[in-house]
């Protein structure tokens, strides 16, 4: 550390002198309130996520600019080739690109958790007598807000480009609702990797390796009918395919009970399996 006694900038701040009197007032042990309920603790951690967005609004770049680029890029890249015009393609494609973008954004949950833990603030959270998963659930609550924002941005761009969903407002809300439920569940995959992997970079690497095949080898961009049989088999069981099919159906005013059921089954499975794994790692760290 180098210090230079001759450089002083601005007025010297008032020096803090600890006063035994002032300290003893705050040290007097008051009544301890009962511990908060799991929901209340999770919502408080969700509030922390909001505050972080307030202080570092740049982090919203990935839920605004990235989705806009995705929509514009693929609509005009594939629109003419795959459908008669970008506008026609959009009717098919928009629900899919909405799913792709939001599911890709879920990986930031893992990256965020990984950096949070590096910084040491989780040490404090983990010594608090609160419901253990609250810190992570709250963090994902904050992320859910980002998912909604991304979905709304994409919808907005889509509407401007000519997307006209037959399902109307209710259909669109239903579609976004399904997407958010799935993304909440899928985030637990990343909390697990965020805890297991050592650095932010490796979390990013693993996320990409999982997300690219998952989103592209699906029904997002084209109907699977033209694909070879082995690929169709994968596409068929891919949870993204189920999610896209159900969102597409709801937004177009129809319904696809089988896909919707599979979407919810996958969501429950992600929470149960990766939520459990995450908490196991979280408690053992």
């Amino acid at each position, binding site marked *: 550390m180098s210090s230079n006694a001759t450089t002083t900038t601005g007025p010297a701040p008032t020096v803090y002198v600890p006063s035994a009197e002032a300290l003893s007032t705050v040290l007097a042990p008051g009544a301890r309130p009962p511990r908060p309920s799991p929901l209340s603790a999770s919502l408080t951690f969700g509030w922390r996520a909001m505050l972080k967005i307030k202080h570092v609004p740049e982090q919203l770049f990935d839920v605004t600019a990235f989705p806009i680029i995705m929509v514009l890029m693929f609509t005009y890249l594939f629109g003419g080739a795959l459908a008669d015009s970008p506008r026609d393609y959009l009717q098919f494609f928009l629900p899919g690109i909405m799913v792709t973008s939001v599911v890709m954004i879920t990986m930031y949950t893992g990256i965020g958790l990984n950096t949070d833990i590096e910084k*040491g603030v989780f040490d404090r959270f983990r010594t608090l*007598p609160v419901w253990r998963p609250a810190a992570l659930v709250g963090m994902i609550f904050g992320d859910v807000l980002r998912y909604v924002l991304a979905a709304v941005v994409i919808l907005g761009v889509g509407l401007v480009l000519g997307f006209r969903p037959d399902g109307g407002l209710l259909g669109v809300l239903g579609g976004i609702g399904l997407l958010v439920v799935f993304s909440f569940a899928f985030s637990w995959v990343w909390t697990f990797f965020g805890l297991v992997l050592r650095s932010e970079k490796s979390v990013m690497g693993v996320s990409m390796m999982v997300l690219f095949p998952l989103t592209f080898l699906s029904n997002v961009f084209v109907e699977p009918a033209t694909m070879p049989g082995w690929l169709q088999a994968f596409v068929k069981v891919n949870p993204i395919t189920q999610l896209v099919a159900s969102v597409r159906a709801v937004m177009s005013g129809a319904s696809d009970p089988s896909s919707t059921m599979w979407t919810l089954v996958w969501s429950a499975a992600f929470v149960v399996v990766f939520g459990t794994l995450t908490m196991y790692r979280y408690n053992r760290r």
Partner: protein
Amino acid sequence: MSRRSTGPAIEAEGLAKSFGDTRALDGLDLTVPAGTVYGVLGPNGAGKTTAVRVLATLLRPDGGRARVFGHDVIAEADAVRARVSLTGQYASVDEDLTGLENLILLGRLLGHRKPAARQRAESLLAAFGLTEAADRQVKKYSGGMRRRIDIAASILNTPDLLFLDEPTTGLDPRSRNQVWEIVRAVVAHGTTVLLTTQYLDEADQLAGRIAVVDHGRVIAEGTPGELKASVGSGTVHLRLRDAHQRPEAERLLRTALDVPVQLEPDPVALTARVGGDGSDLDASEQAARVLGDLARAGIVVDNFSLGQPSLDEVFLALTDHPAVPADERDEQLEAAR
């Protein structure tokens, strides 16, 4: 109050924890009486932080057991968490949030309703001299302010046991004194404090008892007085004008004090302990006599100081090896520059 139990605050037996091939804790035993400041003294890598993390329920030990106020740190982790707070070596508050937001957040997590949490946060900020910085992000705080918000966060609910992991490392002397004053106020209120430090001086200032830790084990334990008696209560540092006179000075010192004399890497410097158990003179009398002896022998002393033994000297006396291996120490000195 009834929650102040009479038994020890911490009882740990044979704690062991390895990270890969490194044995961070290797059979650590510790008994910390309630209501006191207990110092855990040791160099970097001695296992201090690992011990604190195990006792604060953040890490599971591989072996041994530990109880905090009678509650097992593994089986009854929640009961332990309800009574302890930890101020870690690194910021244990959210750097992106303001000081006020951090304290409200923690207050809410401890079950306070929003108005009560805010009120508590504001009075804590005032008591810690942070009112002006309340709405600034913690990452913009100075080192001393950061320590204070960390400690304020730890006493949101006045804990029965407070862990302070190297609370003054990297602080300037004034901020260090502020932290010391806070620690004294905290312990005066009946909270037990476990403090880790690399500075004998700090442990001496604050702690009622000290455990010296090396390689994951306690190698000495006692009151500061007892420890210093075993090491010598003071250390004489000498810098001679002429390096050629050092061997003669060393011989003189050794006969006068009857203790080993340490030759420093600097060719004109040497160090010796004074005021140990064997002498009937106190440290300053012995030092004065040595100075006289040197002057009579015609050895010119450029610089002379009498101080407390450093951690290095304590370690030399207790273990026959310095706290930090010489090559590592040079690297640290390099890095510190």
